[in-house]
């Protein structure tokens, strides 16, 4: 136990002692950027494993990847993942400016809107409902969150090394980032290529993961 004269040393003695300890613990630390990149790498591998275990890329992927509608799915999901990971790097650091990432995010939103607009212009309105509902909506809502679990756990663990100002929002952002990674994988399987389908169901799936991320953030950050 501590000796009795501790309290008589005045209020700063505890702080001096703390500084003594901190200075001697100078060695062990991790760059937040490195921690986050590791989380991305492990998260992508985990997502890939879950994807391969649960499903396969569609057999005709190589032929259809050049078609605009299939390509569109990746033009939305991959930049979304990159923008959200960049944003997580800023969210996790106290007093860091958000930088160019919100602009990239806006760009992704604009691409989505333009894609939907072109689809609406080119497809007769009688077929809108069919392309919106697609054939795999339920799978989409189930598999994207399933694939996203791995990356989400990695991002939450990484954010614990940081100091996000709003834990819930940081968790939700981690959820969107994970969902974007998951959606990019799922897009190689999903036979529904209409931007209408992507804008509806991928977004819904992302909302589910974002809500999970929000509560994970509140709980663990």
């Amino acid at each position, binding site marked *: 136990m501590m000796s009795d004269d501790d309290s008589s040393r005045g209020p700063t003695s505890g702080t001096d002692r*703390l500084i003594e*300890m901190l200075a*001697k*613990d100078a060695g062990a630390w991790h760059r*937040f950027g490195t921690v986050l990149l590791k989380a991305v790498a492990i998260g992508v591998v985990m997502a890939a494993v879950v994807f391969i275990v649960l499903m396969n890329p569609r057999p005709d992927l190589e032929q259809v990847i050049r078609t605009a509608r299939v390509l569109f799915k990746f033009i939305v999901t991959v930049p979304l993942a990159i923008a959200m990971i960049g944003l997580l790097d800023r969210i996790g650091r106290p*007093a860091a400016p958000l930088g160019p990432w919100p602009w990239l995010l806006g760009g992704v939103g604009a691409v989505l809107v333009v894609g939907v607009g072109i689809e609406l212009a080119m497809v007769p309105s009688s077929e809108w409902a069919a392309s919106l509902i697609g054939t795999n909506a339920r799978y989409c809502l189930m598999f994207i969150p399933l694939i996203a679990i791995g990356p989400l756990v990695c991002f939450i663990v990484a954010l614990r090394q940081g100091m996000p100002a709003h834990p819930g929002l940081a968790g939700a952002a981690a959820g969107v980032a994970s969902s974007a990674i998951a959606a990019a994988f799922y897009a190689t399987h999903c036979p529904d290529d209409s931007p209408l389908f992507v804008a509806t169901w991928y977004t819904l799936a992302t909302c589910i993961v974002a809500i999970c991320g929000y509560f994970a953030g509140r709980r663990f950050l």
Partner: protein
Amino acid sequence: MTHPREQQWSVWMAAALEGDEVAYRLFLEAVTPHLRMLARRRLAAFGSDNQDHEDVVQEALLAIHLKRGTWDPRRQIGPWLSVILRNKIIDALRRRGHRVTVPIDDVVEVLADEQSGTPTDGQDISRMMENLKPVQQDIVRSISLEGFSVRDTAARLSMTENAVRVALHRALRSLAAIYRGGTR
């Protein structure tokens, strides 16, 4: 324009991140009075005492230490420090919020009690140490109270230097967790 004082802090902290223990100590010692002043100014409106200020300062120092990987040497260090301190002030007020709900008579009693003797509910580092594991307590006491180096502490406790470093780091993490939980 960056404050010249903050520029010096940045230089020290950048060196500390490269493993310079001397620079790190200089940084911590230079920053502490600044944190104390800010904490006092911000907490004064809430009628908190010196022990409260010092608790916040210690908690902020721990956070600065454990989260120093989030400071980017290309950015100013002042705002980074301020945000960490602000977060810790908010945490402290939130914790106090739970205590404020007691009837006023009790508060008056507690206040009178605090004036007469040593505060019993402060989270000063020496009291919080009692929550650490025995080995961690030995190491923390040797390093912080008796001022031994990591190497000497290792020799005294017949441990390897690395084991002492790991245990010290864990002890600091536990202290931060104890602050966060508000337990004592």
